């Protein structure tokens, strides 16, 4: 989903950066507050960040015959809330933009918006909705991570379609083209990410039950306050 360096017109690049900025400030504030109140959560936040680092480095083959990578930000969004994953996703994307020429500095704002903002917020929203319906934790975690991942790639497709509307059919035709590349490729990979997230959450539930229960999102399911 990384829009390549220089591949967004300057106005779009600036616009997405400006749109991401308030979320970034909110995320930094939220992480700082959470760690000040609960220093013992540092380890789990590290695991959530490591998960995003690991998953976004894995380019997996897909049924469309091209490769793409999961994002790994759903896990952290479920544990610490969606805002906390904005700075984490930003660090991952900055690392890749500066060292790997994957993504870019000019497209960082747009990439942060799709991977570190839309993805985590969709994951969080899906989880809350499913938890309210009383679905089991594994099912809710799976769907949340899976749909959050897909939402990121749909957002990227929209961003590119907006910047490069088809000369004849406009944004819609262009969106269909980019979604065919990104969102379709992503379907099996999003399922993999959902399953991996379930595995990690299960391991956390087994070994860190008490920390996990105190986390805002997981507490929600059991009707306990944070």
């Amino acid at each position, binding site marked *: *989903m*990384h*829009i*390549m*360096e*220089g*591949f967004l*017109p300057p106005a779009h690049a600036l616009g997405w950066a400006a749109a991401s900025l308030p979320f970034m400030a909110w995320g930094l504030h939220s992480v700082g507050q959470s760690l000040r109140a609960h220093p013992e959560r540092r*380890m*789990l936040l*590290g695991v959530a960040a*490591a*998960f*995003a*680092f*690991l*998953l976004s*480095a*894995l*380019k*997996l*083959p*897909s*049924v*469309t*015959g*091209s*490769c*793409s990578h999961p994002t790994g930000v759903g896990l952290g969004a479920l544990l610490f809330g969606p805002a906390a994953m904005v700075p984490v996703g930003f660090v991952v994307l900055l*690392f890749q*933009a*500066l*060292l*790997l*020429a*994957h993504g*870019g*500095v*000019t497209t960082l704002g747009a990439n942060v918006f799709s991977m570190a903002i839309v993805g985590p917020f969709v994951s969080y929203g899906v989880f809350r909705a499913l938890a309210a319906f009383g679905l089991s934790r594994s099912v809710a975690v799976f769907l949340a991570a899976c749909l959050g991942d897909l939402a990121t790639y749909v957002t*990227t497709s929209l961003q*590119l379609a907006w910047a*490069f509307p*088809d*000369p004849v059919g406009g944004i819609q035709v*262009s969106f269909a*083209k*980019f979604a065919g*590349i*990104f969102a379709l490729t*992503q379907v*099996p990979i999003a*399922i*993999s990410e959902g*399953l991996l997230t*379930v*595995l990690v959450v299960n*391991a956390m539930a*087994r*070994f*860190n039950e008490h920390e996990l229960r105190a986390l805002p999102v997981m507490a929600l399911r059991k009707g306990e306050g944070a």
Partner: protein
Amino acid sequence: MKARTWMIWAAIVLLTVLPLWLVSAPPVEPGAEAPSVFGGADERAQQAIGSIAPDYKPWFSPVVEPASGEIASLLFALQAALGAGVIGFWLGMSVTRERARRAAAQNQPPASLPQDRRAD
């Protein structure tokens, strides 16, 4: 590990490996370069931009570009290793802590152990 955990792992491996069998390389046209399979979706998007807006020129190029594909894969491996290392450390620590907690609970009444206070 529980049977369900094994099944989830198997599903992940299948989802990753099956495309390699399902997708075959498109036929090579005479005189043309062999089309590549399993390239990055990002590159496909770049080509799509080229076909929608042939006049568009990227206005900025990457600050540092990995010297070759090998160096790029080294850096990607490094990124994955960093992530996996932290997760492995946490998992090892958690398993050991859980084991110690269980052993302590078996030997002595848990209330007398100071490190068990967190678990209460």
